């Protein structure tokens, strides 16, 4: 839902980042207001996951220029855990398996870390069980997954549901969902999309990274951005995604070439 007067949650300005010696983000600009749903599309390797990890504070990426402001605060100077606590959430393209750490305990510790930041009381194991059982319904997940180690041996689709369960528990203000639709079967896609829709409201915002229109059929974006070579090349409405579906990305190469010619 686009409201021009809604508060800005996330403001990315001319963001540059590299991994080791390789420049990947080369001037990303993006403004996200409360209530909005954004989709970022783009070729493999265009820098979508890099953008999401830079926003979440992954130590492998170094910001070399630009700024990211979250609700008026400089996001880039915060530790990853602090970003999460104040409401920035990253749903991983490849959720990490952590053998030996119980999923239930992991969910409880992280939920309490977020609650403490919001000034809410810590939930004991019993109160948390109640909460988690309620939130499991958002993604129609079997409670048996709570007793397993974090993501260990989960199927691709189960991992993605577990990500959305975490989102449901943490109630972020900005949720960045990196290819949450990949690996989901048709029913699971519907369920997960339903969950995301259910969690979206006028006070928060969602950034969906995806390759496919089918996710955007289920979650209607307010804006669609096309990423190429480390920046956002074009922004449009939901019809831009449909256009991409039909035309592919070849035109992107032409625009990039034109841009390069301009600079030269």
């Amino acid at each position, binding site marked *: 839902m686009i409201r021009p007067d809604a508060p800005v949650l996330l403001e990315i300005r001319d963001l540059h980042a590299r991994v080791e010696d390789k420049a990947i983000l080369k001037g990303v600009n993006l403004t996200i207001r409360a209530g909005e749903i954004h989709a970022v599309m783009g070729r493999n390797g265009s820098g979508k996951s890099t953008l999401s990890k830079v926003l979440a504070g992954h130590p492998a990426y170094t910001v070399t220029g630009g700024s990211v402001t979250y609700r008026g605060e400089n996001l880039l100077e915060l*530790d990853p*855990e602090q970003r999460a606590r104040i409401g920035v959430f990253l749903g*991983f393209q490849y959720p990490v398996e952590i053998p*030996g*750490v119980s999923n239930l305990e*992991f969910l409880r510790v992280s939920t309490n*870390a977020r609650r403490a930041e919001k000034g809410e009381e810590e939930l004991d194991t019993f109160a948390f069980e109640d909460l988690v059982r309620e939130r499991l319904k958002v993604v129609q997940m079997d409670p048996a997954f709570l007793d397993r180690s974090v993501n260990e041996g989960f199927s691709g689709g189960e991992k993605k549901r577990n990500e959305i369960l975490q989102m449901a528990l943490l109630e972020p203000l900005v949720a960045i969902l990196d290819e949450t639709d990949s690996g989901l079967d048709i029913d699971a896609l519907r369920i997960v999309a339903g969950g995301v829709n259910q969690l979206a409201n006028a006070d928060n915002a969602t950034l969906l990274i995806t390759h496919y229109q089918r996710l955007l059929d289920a979650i209607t974006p307010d804006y669609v951005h096309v990423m190429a070579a480390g920046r956002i090349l074009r922004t449009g409405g939901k019809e831009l995604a449909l256009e991409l579906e039909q035309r592919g990305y070849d035109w992107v190469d032409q625009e990039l070439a034109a841009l390069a010619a301009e600079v030269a």
Partner: protein
Amino acid sequence: MSASLAAPAAAKGAWLEGWLAQLPAACGELAPVQERGRQALRQTAIPSARHEDWRFTDLSLLQTLPLAPAAAATAALPAPEAGAFRLHWNGGSDPLAGHALPAGLQRLSAGEIAQGLGHTLAAAGCQQHWPVELNHAAAEHVLALRVTSRSQVSLELVSAAAEGLQALRLLLLLEEKAELDLSQLVEAQAAGLHSLVVEVHLARGARLSHGLVALGQADAALMANMAIEQEPESNAQLSSITSGWGLARLEPRAVQVDGAAHTTLRGLQLVDGQRIADTHSFVEFKGPEGQLDQLHKAVAAGQGRSVFNGAVRVPRAAQRTNAAQLSRSLLLSDRARIDTKPELEIVADDVKCAHGATVSSLQTDELFYLQSRGIGADQAAGLLQRAFCEEVLRDLPAAARSWCSLERLLEVAA
């Protein structure tokens, strides 16, 4: 005794001479054993880097330790598990005095002690090991018990000591199909030396689960030998958790006298600061169709040093042995050191012997995933460490398990 152990006068150590000289004359039931141990210590060198088995393990801490007999201390423990029998034991007075033993547990007679003492140590080839001789020289009593055929006993032995020397000697006979869960705590609450020698004989079909939780401090040392002798169809699990000792040397040793038994070894050692923990295990199959499942884990932080040497001996008689040994170490600092070495001696041809060793540090992606959910870096590292340790902790007998929360282990380790 090999020639290389003949002691040059200097290597014997003035501290050891001094200690031996002031010991009271050998007396009591263990007098002959004491004589023998003292004699052996006088004649052999203190192990040093020149001895292959002690290459990485510097014993110089020992010369600084107070060695007067330690007084018992109180360990902060939860109440005994339901149905378990708890004994407080500091090696000095008879821990059984004033106790009615539970059904299935009996005291060994003087004759049985004379016959059984040292038998398993000899079978396991360690009766002349220096830490064992040290125990021989010092221990005043032996706690000698039998678990009668087909009974099930849950025993807790608690040995917490104040400053000084604590020497514990334990002899257990498990009769046919007897079952024993033994949770054992050795805790140093001040500077000192803790010596433990355990001998267990398992008759056919017997089952033992022994969990040693050893919590020390930087100015305390632990020397522990746990030897078991297994008849066929017996099942023995030896687990040890050590944390905090300035120096800890553990020697779990199992011999399957006719093969066809099941041995499980579990070890977890945490080292931080300048501490050293060294486990030298030994398993020998003297007959066919024996099984070994061994997992040894180490967490090394600071400038800590962890040593693991796992000997497995499979002679020709031990066909169809199935043995698996895995050593996994977590390296938390680049100044910590880990030395791990399997030592497989396999002569039989129809056997399965797998072994592996890994050393890793905390995984960046695992840490980041936890942090990205609001979990602080330290807490995330703690969760990952606990996950690493849990694999060993979960196999401890219940009481021992309840004595060593990871919080406690890490608190002691640092």
